[in-house]
């Protein structure tokens, strides 16, 4: 299988605190990688390192490399804005802009200089369809995004991320604030999306990780303790501590 993202001896610091220690892992094309681990283990930090969202944090620095298609995203000359366009992100709390449903999805396209209205309309429809939201909103695209339910808002945020055609989708506990029905919808959606994208999803929910991910990575205290095919991690983990965490003995 082709490697899409590769972390190579990646360390990350907030001032003097080491948040990630020597992370090396390969993430393959068209797979879903679930990242699990107790709170504060570095899951989100790692996720945000992949699209360089940690750049904005004061006092953050890193060592080592993360590569996308063999290209170092921490290269000095790299276009950070371009990297973020290739690596989309969905956040824990749904966060639509105070704009209409249509304008939320079209935002990334419009800002990037696309003027062709029919192309934008087409792209918005496609993205909403891919996010399994089109049928619910097609008659009220000009309504405020805040009128949608929590689960719909989160799918809108996914559509917004898809509209700029990323290659990788990072999801930071995308369903943690949603009810079971909305969560199920998001999970089905992730399953659909992996035919087009590589998806890395942070989750606190063991069952969710087991259901949706092809590979599971177990982080603890900033270290990657276990990374393998999901069925193996959940049935025959190589480390005792992984098993303890998965079976709920701590964390």
């Amino acid at each position, binding site marked *: 299988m082709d490697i899409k993202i590769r972390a190579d001896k990646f360390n990350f610091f907030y001032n003097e605190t080491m948040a990630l220690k020597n992370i090396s892992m390969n993430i393959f094309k068209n797979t879903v990688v679930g990242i699990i681990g107790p709170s504060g283990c570095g899951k989100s930090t790692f996720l945000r390192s992949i699209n360089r969202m940690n750049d904005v944090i004061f006092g953050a620095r890193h060592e080592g490399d993360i590569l996308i298609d063999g290209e170092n995203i921490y290269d000095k000359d790299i276009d950070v*804005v*371009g990297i973020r366009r290739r690596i989309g992100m969905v*956040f824990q709390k749904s966060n639509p802009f*105070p704009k209409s449903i249509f304008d939320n999805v079209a935002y990334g396209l419009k800002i990037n200089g696309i003027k062709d209205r029919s192309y934008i309309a087409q792209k918005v429809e496609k993205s909403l369809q891919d996010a399994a939201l089109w049928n619910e909103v097609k008659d009220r695209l000009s309504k405020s995004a*805040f009128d949608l339910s929590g689960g719909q808002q989160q799918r809108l945020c996914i559509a917004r991320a898809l509209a*700029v055609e990323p290659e990788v989708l990072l999801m930071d506990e995308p369903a943690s604030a949603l009810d079971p029905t909305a969560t199920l919808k998001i999970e089905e959606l992730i399953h659909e999306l992996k035919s087009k994208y590589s998806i890395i999803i942070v989750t606190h929910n063991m069952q969710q990780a087991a259901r949706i991910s092809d590979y599971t990575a177990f982080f603890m205290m900033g270290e990657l303790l276990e990374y393998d095919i999901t069925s193996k991690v959940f049935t025959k983990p190589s480390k005792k501590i992984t098993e303890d965490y998965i079976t709920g003995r701590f964390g």
Partner: protein
Amino acid sequence: MRNPYRTQKIAFSLLFLATLLIVVPVGLIVIVIIFKGFPAINWQFLSDIPRQGMRSGGIFPAIIGTLYLVAGAIIFALPIGLLAAIYLSEYSKENVLNRIIRLAIINLSGVPSVVYGLFGLALFVVFFKFGASILAGSLTLGIMILPVIITTSREALESVPDSFREVSLSLGVSKWQTIRHIVLPNAIPGILTGTILGLGRAAGETAPILFTVAAFYLPRLPKSIFDQAMALPYHLYVISTQVPNVDEKIRYGTALVLLALVLFMNLVAIIIRYQFRRRKKW
């Protein structure tokens, strides 16, 4: 035994009385000025030049002068204030230089207005040789309202949730585009409110224009920005203290026009803020 209900009642009454005391002077000022000034208000008073040594005629040049000064102050102060606010809220990092800048802004707002007047006289009138002129007066007023504009604009920018900025960046949008298309549009009502409050203050101040622009008696409209001009607050001062035998009606009429101008601006600011709060959903 003490009756807790009675203590509560006393406390409540005291609190209510203190609050009422705030309303009383405001109400009295407005009522007195309206009662004494309203009889002077007619079309001639608003549109004519002062006549007979300001003892009759109107206050048109003073109204126009004040409007020019306020417009000039805002043309100067809004761009600088807004850009400074964007820098402080979006770009500046916590360091010594920025702490000094912030301290300077706070101190700037505490400087007595007559000191601004002297400063304007030294810098604009004398050093830059603008003379006593609308330009010098506007710049002086502009500097005076800069802290108001910077502080309120910064608060407006900082009240835009960080999650908006994060999402925008994560969509491959640059920081400046994020500021222009997401942060600024959501901060505009707050910025507008601050600007209008600054305007109201600029319209009402006497001391900063005293040495920099205000004409004692200039019964014509200014011809250019290098011309002197009359202005409402200074005109009020002149006819109240410097010219004998001015009809009380004219004095209170002038005060009423000035008060109406300032209150109108504050009202607009309040309406904008109210509208925005009602629409805001995050």
